[in-house]
């Protein structure tokens, strides 16, 4: 019998094991290390077909004709579909603006745009059939930059635009424009003793998640379809898929299959609609798996950007003003460009106090590859530029760059350029102090005492190109600010369903959300939250699907905050119901049932004083509690379209980096020796995962600093390097040790005080590495990635 009449003090060690704050291990870890975890490309079905996409070989052209007859006649081919085969009047989709054709019609607007799809009984048959489709193109001039996009007589990428941004953009080839004016930058500039300006170029980065776009559509007997797919937001996909198929949303049943990384690259639709169309047409399950080449065309990239900045400061080191203009290349379709513009503009000042600002950010429509969400979302590009400016100012004032930043660092209460006060801790100065205080890695590690150089540790590594003669060291610092969650008035909510019952004599909680686990560890923390709130050890995480309400996107560092918040909120309500049952059953045994604050801990109902009142097993025997509730963070508001003023963001996260690099000035090669990070995470729900996220984000920032760039031919707008041979991401040899210093200053508005983590470390990593290379070489270096020719002047 679990009900006790005698109070038992359980204060010591009574807290439920595996709750928040512990480094619990991933629930899917064993499946992932044994190869049993089913990623979206691992789906298999009896009698399934393989889908393949035919993509445009040109960036801008009218389509004269498409002839599919030869492809269709091939043995093993079941369907070949083009625009004409789409079942309804809805032929486009899109995250914010429905401007992306499911299959090209009339024109193609970028290299690699889907034109036709094929289903066949072998992937190679599908590929060969696609190659037999004949398309007649009439080439159009390509628009690839601001000048060609906004020329008065420029061809319009999208004719007849009627989206809600068209009214306030200066040219129809501009997707969105956000100015921010606060104070008077021109007046304030007069107070400046020094003024620095610069033009910066940020290259096009790819998310390069390892698990390719893939999934399987299975036609249902009711005329609907079941789709198993790797995505970041099931319900957003569903909203875009159902209308194109002409099906009500209930007939498109989506289940998340294993996701091999995302980083923003799965926010947009890729193969989802194509697989469904082919499955519905053939009546058979259809699997589509992109190869790496196709993956580079199958998702949007990080916006490349040009940024012009001007800053002033007084001779005692106070910033006077900032003016900037940020031009983001959104490519052929809008994707998330409007929101990226909002972020780039509102975070363009960085984590500094500057009262007088004049800011403009725009995103262009061009014939370059479409760009959209990627980790850091608009804030990354700005951080690259403002941090370079901070170093320039410090140098001009002959001040220490970290000191200069600390003098101007924002803090809790500082107004952002949008006029919004930062109402939670903003430990910018403290993060900089910590990063500077970290011990330095030893000099010339490649030179073992008195011995020959270990070439593996030199820039250039095993290629044995040098023994260290031309190697110099540099140190660089950077700090950044990123908003957490969806901003600008977006109704950013999540839903959680929590069930509590007794199974095999044990109390068990089941958590069901539609959250996409993309590797970030949401499934781990959801179980931790449920254990903390419900006092049970056994928590089952239900697979994510559309049978439960939307969880919103796994992006913008928001999932632990918002879906974690929803799980917490639902658990709290489940707990109340459990206690009601307890009161009804056992209330008469102990007065505390009616009077005390009651908790669930270690499988028991306890008072806040630690008295055990009942075992959960006894309370729940014969009963279960099941609730589905929504939860949202505080509302935000849109930025004014003229002044940029508005309380647009809900929370911020901050990270600082110190980079130590060694540069071989003769060869133009860089080795990053160490990339130390300090970050405030509010509350580390799972310290192990927190550190893993920070290190992963840091490495992506390192990649864009020294190697990562999608190269688009400026004359033809064709992608030149869609492969892992030519698009380089850091290997274990390119990645240094990444010591992490985690600060936990709670945001009292957030669940448990937590702060979104995933993106901030990607911001400051890149400018820190650039600053270190500048420090080592004395070169100006205003573009990323830095290539050997920039360092050797060849």
């Amino acid at each position, binding site marked *: 019998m679990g009900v006790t009449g005698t109070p038992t003090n359980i204060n010591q060690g009574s807290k439920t094991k595996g709750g928040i704050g512990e*480094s619990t*291990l*991933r629930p*899917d*870890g*064993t*499946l*992932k*290390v*044994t*190869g*049993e*975890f*089913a*990623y979206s*490309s*691992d789906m*298999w079905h009896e009698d399934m077909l393989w889908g393949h996409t035919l993509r445009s070989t040109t960036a801008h052209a009218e389509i004269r004709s498409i002839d599919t007859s030869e492809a269709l006649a091939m043995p093993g081919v079941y369907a070949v579909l083009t625009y004409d085969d789409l079942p309804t009047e809805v032929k486009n989709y899109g995250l914010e603006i429905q401007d992306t054709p499911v299959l090209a019609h009339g024109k193609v607007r970028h290299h690699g745009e889907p034109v036709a799809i094929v289903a066949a009984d*072998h992937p*190679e048959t599908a590929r060969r059939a696609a190659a037999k489709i004949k398309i007649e193109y009439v080439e159009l001039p390509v628009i690839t930059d601001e000048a060609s996009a906004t020329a008065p007589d420029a061809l319009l990428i999208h004719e007849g635009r009627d989206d809600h941004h068209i009214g306030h953009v200066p040219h129809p080839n501009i997707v969105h424009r956000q100015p921010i004016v606060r104070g008077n930058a021109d007046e304030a500039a007069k107070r400046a003793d020094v003024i620095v300006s610069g033009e910066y170029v940020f290259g096009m980065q790819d*998310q*390069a*998640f*390892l*698990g*390719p776009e893939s999934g399987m559509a299975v036609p249902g007997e009711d005329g609907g379809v079941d789709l198993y797919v790797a995505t970041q937001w099931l319900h957003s996909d569903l909203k875009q898929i159902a209308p194109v198929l002409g099906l009500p949303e209930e007939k498109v049943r989506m289940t998340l299959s*294993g*996701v*091999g*990384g*995302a*980083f923003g690259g799965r926010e947009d639709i890729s193969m989802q609609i194509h697989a469904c169309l082919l499955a519905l047409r053939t009546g058979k399950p259809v699997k589509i*798996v992109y*190869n*790496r080449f196709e993956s580079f065309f199958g998702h949007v990239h990080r916006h490349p950007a040009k940024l012009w900045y001007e800053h002033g400061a007084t001779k005692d080191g106070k910033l006077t003003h900032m003016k900037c203009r940020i031009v983001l290349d959104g490519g052929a379709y809008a994707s998330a460009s409007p929101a990226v513009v909002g972020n780039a503009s509102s975070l363009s000042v960085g984590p500094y106090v500057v009262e007088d600002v004049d800011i403009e950010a725009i995103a262009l429509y061009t014939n370059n590859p479409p760009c959209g969400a990627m980790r850091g979302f608009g804030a990354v590009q700005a951080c690259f530029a403002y941090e370079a400016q901070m170093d320039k100012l410090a140098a001009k004032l002959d001040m220490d760059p970290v000191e200069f930043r600390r003098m101007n660092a924002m803090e809790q209460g500082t107004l952002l350029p949008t006029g919004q006060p930062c109402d939670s801790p903003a430990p910018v100065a403290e993060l900089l102090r910590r990063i500077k205080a970290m011990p330095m890695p030893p000099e010339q590690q490649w030179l073992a005492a008195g011995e020959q150089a*270990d070439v*593996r*540790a030199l820039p250039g590594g*095993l290629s044995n190109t040098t023994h260290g003669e031309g190697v110099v060291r540099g140190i660089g610092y950077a700090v950044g600010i990123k908003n957490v969650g969806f901003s600008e008035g977006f109704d950013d909510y999540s839903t959680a369903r929590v069930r509590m019952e007794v199974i095999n004599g044990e109390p068990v909680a089941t958590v069901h959300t539609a959250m996409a686990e*993309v*590797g*970030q560890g949401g499934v781990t923390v959801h179980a931790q939250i449920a254990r903390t709130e419900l006092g049970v050890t056994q928590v089952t995480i239900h697979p994510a699907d559309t049978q439960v309400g939307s969880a919103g996107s796994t992006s913008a560092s928001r999932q632990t905050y918002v879906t974690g918040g929803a799980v917490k909120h639902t658990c709290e309500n489940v707990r109340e119901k459990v206690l009601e049952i307890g009161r009804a059953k056992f209330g008469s045994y102990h007065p505390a049932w009616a009077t005390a604050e009651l908790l669930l801990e270690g499988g028991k109902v306890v008072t806040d004083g630690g008295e055990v009142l009942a075992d959960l097993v006894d309370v729940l025997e014969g009963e279960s509690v099941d609730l589905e509730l929504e939860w949202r963070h505080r509302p935000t508001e849109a930025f004014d379209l003229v002044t940029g003023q508005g309380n647009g963001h809900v929370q911020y996260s901050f990270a600082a980096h110190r980079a130590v690099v060694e540069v071989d000035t003769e060869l133009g090669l860089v080795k990053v020796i160490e990339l130390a990070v300090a970050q405030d995470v509010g509350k580390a729900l799972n310290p*192990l*995962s927190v*550190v*893993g996220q920070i*290190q*992963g984000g840091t*490495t*992506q920032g390192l990649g864009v600093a020294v190697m990562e760039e999608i190269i688009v031919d400026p004359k033809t707008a064709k992608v030149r390097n869609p*492969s*892992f*041979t030519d698009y380089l*991401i850091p*290997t*274990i*040899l390119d*990645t240094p*040790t*990444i010591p992490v210093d985690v600060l936990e200053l709670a945001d009292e508005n957030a669940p448990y005080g937590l702060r979104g983590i995933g993106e901030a470390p990607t911001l400051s990593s890149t400018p820190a590495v650039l600053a270190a290379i500048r420090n080592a070489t004395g070169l100006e270096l205003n573009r990323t990635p830095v290539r050997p020719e920039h360092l050797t002047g060849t």
Partner: protein
Amino acid sequence: MRVNFTVNGRKQEADDVWEGESLLYVLRERMGLPGSKNACEQGECGSCTVRLDGVPVCACLVAAGQVEGREVVTVEGLADFAKQREEGCATGACGGTSLQEAQQWQAKGTDSQTGEGDELAPIQQAFIDAGAVQCGFCTPGLLVAADELLERNAEPSDADIREALSGNLCRCTGYEKILDAVRLAAARQERQEEAV
């Protein structure tokens, strides 16, 4: 064509294989062993790393026909493979698995697809414990490569680990925890040997 080979200790036969099919395709789509991953199919990422007669190779670069009569170990067979090796050590035959040993090795009777009776190799457990798994897509390839490193070199330096794993891309972790995992597995292996 027909290809006969041994996968994780079991004789397998694949029929109607196209000339162009890779070992990776045959494993994933014909044998029902999707543990080896398909991230580039170009030999650049290492996600598909398997051992062919003991040697780590990118399965995407091996034509299916090339494996006729040979032995393949995939991540699905890693635990059994490691156990077999350990038992070899216990009898005094330490110093890695010889080709002959690898060939004589037999999988236990369970179905490798369901993972029934999962027992993990030390390197698998270390990846979980060290937090080296995030999305996990790179994990199978890294495990096969790391296990082979530890078989060759029981006490690898960081430089050795980096060199051995430089053909395996990971986009999520920043590699630090992968290094931790390999160090952890090496340390545990050493402790175990001391105990013997």
